[in-house]
């Protein structure tokens, strides 16, 4: 059994190497598919982590009118506490809002000193659970708060965050669709390249068939050849991804410093890499199988 396996791998490698001109072609198509999928996973993972982080910070702010009465304030607070998605409420007074502004924008601080009175409203800053209830319930809450007496304005971050998430979902599905097409193209290329190398060795295949070699024995090396193309293609793609990230990372973080923490982009996990290589080998295996089944027959 082990002997048979090394025979397949040896012969598969020989066949791959003899047809390396064409093998490069299928190797590259696989590499492109794995590259796109890998990029998708890296960017998607980063986007998900970033959005999670944003979701955890304050999302719902209720600004109070300067003339809001204590009763109106507590009515608003009660309404907020009644919502299960709300996990925390920070009360920010007018003075605190002013102090915060002066701290965050020291350049503009002198301007505020000239203002006759504090222009900043008091507010409730509400934290929502990351996996909190449906956006629709929160939308209703925000709308209801806006009409309550004593409320000047309601800012609800979750709305555009939701839009961002659904945009992300859309990009993801387009990406997976593209990957599926690329995988199909790669599988077809492998099939054709393996058929080409079987054609180059048709005499040998005919002889082995006539001598009575088991069909698995004849086809095995070519299936292996497909797997080698897949595996090497995936390794090539991962290498390109890694190098590309190392080269692009400094530029990206310089470009978008502050907005996104691009320095924190993580490369694929070992499990994900192993999965990609295994998947590419499976695609190569499939391509090799189709070629071998069609080309080598007992009669």
């Amino acid at each position, binding site marked *: 059994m082990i002997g048979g396996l090394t025979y397949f791998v040896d012969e598969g490698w020989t066949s791959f190497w003899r047809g390396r001109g064409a093998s490069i072609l299928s190797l590259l198509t696989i590499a492109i598919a794995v590259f796109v999928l890998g990029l998708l996973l890296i960017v998607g993972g980063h986007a998900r982590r970033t959005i999670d982080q944003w979701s955890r910070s304050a999302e719902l702010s209720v600004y109070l009118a300067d003339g809001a009465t204590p009763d109106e304030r507590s009515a608003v607070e009660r309404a907020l506490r009644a919502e299960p998605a709300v996990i925390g409420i920070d009360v920010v007074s007018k003075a605190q809002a002013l102090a915060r502004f002066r701290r965050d924008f020291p350049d503009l601080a002198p301007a505020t000193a000239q203002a006759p009175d504090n222009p900043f409203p008091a507010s409730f800053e509400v934290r929502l659970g990351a996996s909190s209830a449906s956006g629709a319930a929160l939308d209703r809450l925000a709308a209801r708060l806006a009409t309550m007496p004593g409320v000047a304005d309601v800012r609800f971050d979750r709305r555009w965050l939701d839009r961002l998430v659904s945009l992300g979902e859309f990009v993801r599905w387009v990406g997976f669709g593209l990957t599926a097409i690329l995988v199909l193209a790669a599988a077809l290329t492998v099939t054709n390249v393996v058929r080409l190398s079987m054609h180059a060795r048709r*005499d*040998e295949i*005919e*002889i*082995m*068939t*006539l*001598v*009575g*070699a*088991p*069909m698995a*024995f004849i086809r095995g090396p070519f299936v292996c050849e497909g797997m080698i193309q897949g595996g090497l293609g995936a390794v090539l793609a991962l290498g390109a991804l890694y190098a590309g990230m190392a080269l692009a990372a400094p530029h990206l973080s310089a470009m978008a410093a502050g907005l996104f923490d691009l320095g924190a982009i993580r490369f694929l996990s070992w499990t994900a890499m192993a999965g990609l290589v295994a998947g590419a080998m499976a695609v190569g295996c499939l391509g090799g199988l189709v070629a071998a089944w069609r080309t080598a*027959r*007992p*009669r």
Partner: protein
Amino acid sequence: MIDIDGLSRRYGGAISALDDVTLHVGRGEFVFLTGPSGAGKSTLLRILIGQEVPTSGRVVVDGKDLSALKPADIQRYRRTVGFVFQDFKLVPRKTVFENVMFALRILGVPDVQQRRKTFQVLKWVGLQHRATAYPIELSGGEQQRVAIARALVNEPVLVLADEPTGNLDPDLAIEIMDLFRDMNAGGTTVLVATHDRELIRRVGRRTVALDHGRIARPA
């Protein structure tokens, strides 16, 4: 060993490569299949190695009905029969030794035994000194002896040969025939197709003649 009954093989509509052929070859026999070019000799042998299926009729070899064989069975059957072809059919990128040993390898014979038997049979065809050569480095006669060694190494009950001397000059042809006679003396059933009547005359064995796909001279 070979029981052929009412065998016909038609290509397309009109061409009948074999037409109602009935032939019996007993265990341990040596039979020549002869006839002019186009008589149907190769077609008959292709059917006997499972490369082609009869249009009608029955072919039984060593108790196995060939038309009933599934693909995996065809390969198993082929491992029990030896074949020799006019164009030798050696694998160019394998050495003489590897070409012969391959027939044992696919039987799953242990490694040491593969080597021992391969060496023995190469010695029998007189090519033990060329074991590491590649087919292209050998003469036609030598290549055919390698092919015969490969056909015989797994001790088949039956050896089939299609024009095995077709590419060789007459003296070499006789040498090759001596190998077939020798294996037949060891008990192997041999069926050789050849159009070379002079060769048949010199070897002197039972001869079955085909003409236009029919048995011309039943024996």
